[in-house]
């Protein structure tokens, strides 16, 4: 999930680069600030986030909005398109980002009612982080499963900076090697999640000969995952060139519809995860993918997906982080599906 900033040298689109952003005053009734990025405006009340743009307006339940925006912020706008819902979202151009309303909604787009603006990633990220900081109340953790956190509702009630500023794990070679990202333990603040209490906690036998302590290495990946304090937040655990193993734990629903700009693979390591697949451009339903432990599936580059897990499940997200792939797909030089037969 290493979203490299140098993936594209070319501008994201023909849209002019917007630089204007504003932070509004504190609302006397709700206590929240409003924000703007270009001609998009963001405000919240006790229940809803409200987004407006020239000739358009959209409302989202504020818990869903914060969970979606949290992923966009944590992932650095991620790979490709992050749909907060069927109307609002972002497209990552790696250094620049498009904020859109209705662009990937068939009805809006064909009626000419969609709107999009282009920003430098740095500029839009600053606005999104400010929104998250102001609108996330004490006790609400947008990374947590709904049963594990407080509520997002109500008027302004403190902050939860620790929850929204977590550092995303990104191993350079593999988790646990000296100098790399550390194992998770009770002692360093990662207790076992309640839904994985039954998992085996054994450690592998690792017997290096003298001088090979840094190369002979193994750890309990399932134990590591069972201690994740976040949901739907892939983190890099092992790296082979551009091949990134990004396992994650999933509970309830993926807060976004992710439209990747490359093929992405899922291997369900435990339990079950169901995926709702829609067309990337139009949101027209295309398939349902039901996965159980051991199932492997490819998410093509021309779809958007949303996952559902009734019990916390372990998922291996496998990405090819190569910077050139989106361009190859866009030019028709690489397929939307990695494998054909």
């Amino acid at each position: 999930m290493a979203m490299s900033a140098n993936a594209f040298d070319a501008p994201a689109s023909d849209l002019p680069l917007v630089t204007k952003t504003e932070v509004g005053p504190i609302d006397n009734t709700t206590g929240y600030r409003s924000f703007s990025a270009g001609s998009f405006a963001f405000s919240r009340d006790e229940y809803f986030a409200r987004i407006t743009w020239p000739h358009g307006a959209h409302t989202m339940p504020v818990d869903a909005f914060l969970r979606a925006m949290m992923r966009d912020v944590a992932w650095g706008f991620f790979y490709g398109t992050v749909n907060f819902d069927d109307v609002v979202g972002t497209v990552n151009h790696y250094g620049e980002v498009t904020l859109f309303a209705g662009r990937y909604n068939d009805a809006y787009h064909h009626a000419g009612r969609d709107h999009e603006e282009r920003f430098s990633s740095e500029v839009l990220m600053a606005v999104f982080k400010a929104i998250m900081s102001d609108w996330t109340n004490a006790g609400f953790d947008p990374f947590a499963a709904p049963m594990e956190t407080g509520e997002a509702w109500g008027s302004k009630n403190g902050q939860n900076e620790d929850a929204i500023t977590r550092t995303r794990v990104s191993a350079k070679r593999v988790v646990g090697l000296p100098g790399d990202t550390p194992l998770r333990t009770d002692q360093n603040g990662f207790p076992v999640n309640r839904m994985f209490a039954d998992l085996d906690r054994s450690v592998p036998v690792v017997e290096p000969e003298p001088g090979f302590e840094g190369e002979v290495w193994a750890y309990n990946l399932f134990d590591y995952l069972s201690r994740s304090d976040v949901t739907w937040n892939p983190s890099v655990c092992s790296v082979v060139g551009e091949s990134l193993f990004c396992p994650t734990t999933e509970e309830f629903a993926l807060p976004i519809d992710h439209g990747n700009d490359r093929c992405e693979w899922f291997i369900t390591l435990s339990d079950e995860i169901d995926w709702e697949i829609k067309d990337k451009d139009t949101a027209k339903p295309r398939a349902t993918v039901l996965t159980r432990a051991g199932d492997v599936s490819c998410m093509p580059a021309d779809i958007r997906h949303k996952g559902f897990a009734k019990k916390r499940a372990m998922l291996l997200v496998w990405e090819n982080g190569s910077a050139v792939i989106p361009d190859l797909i866009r030019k028709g030089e690489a397929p939307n599906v990695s494998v054909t037969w």
Partner: protein
Amino acid sequence: MEYRTRLGSISDYEKGKVIPIDDDPKNYVFSNIFEVAATSAPYERVAVAKNFEYVIEVTRAEGNSAWYCAAHDEFAVAMDGKVEIELVKLDFPATIAPLDSQGAHKLGGEPQGRKMGRIVLSRGHQCLLPRGAAYRFKADSPACLMIQTVEGPETVQKWAEICQNS
């Protein structure tokens, strides 16, 4: 409430499926690693996922494997059973896997070099198979490994056999 984590194994797995609405199920390249391990020969390195040159291989560990070496790191995750891995630092790794080569290469015989150590993986454990090292798997009873690597001479691609076709 008490929760039970459902893990799969070669002898006990439940496979999901693609339910098409307006799409070809083949686009999802849908398979199950335990089914692949159950139906493959020991140490056949079957690709279950591929993204350009990179692959994820599944292999059924049973008995002793040949020795392998790659010019890049690889990683193995035990998905079922217990697997021992022996590691040897090759004196001349480029004679087996040239520096610009991809994927695992099979050694013709015993490796020449210093012993690096041994690892024993159980289900859920992940290990590093370091670049330039020869490695061999051992399993007393059938086990399932998932290997993060690059497509190479040992990679077997049999998508029509392993994937949902309709």
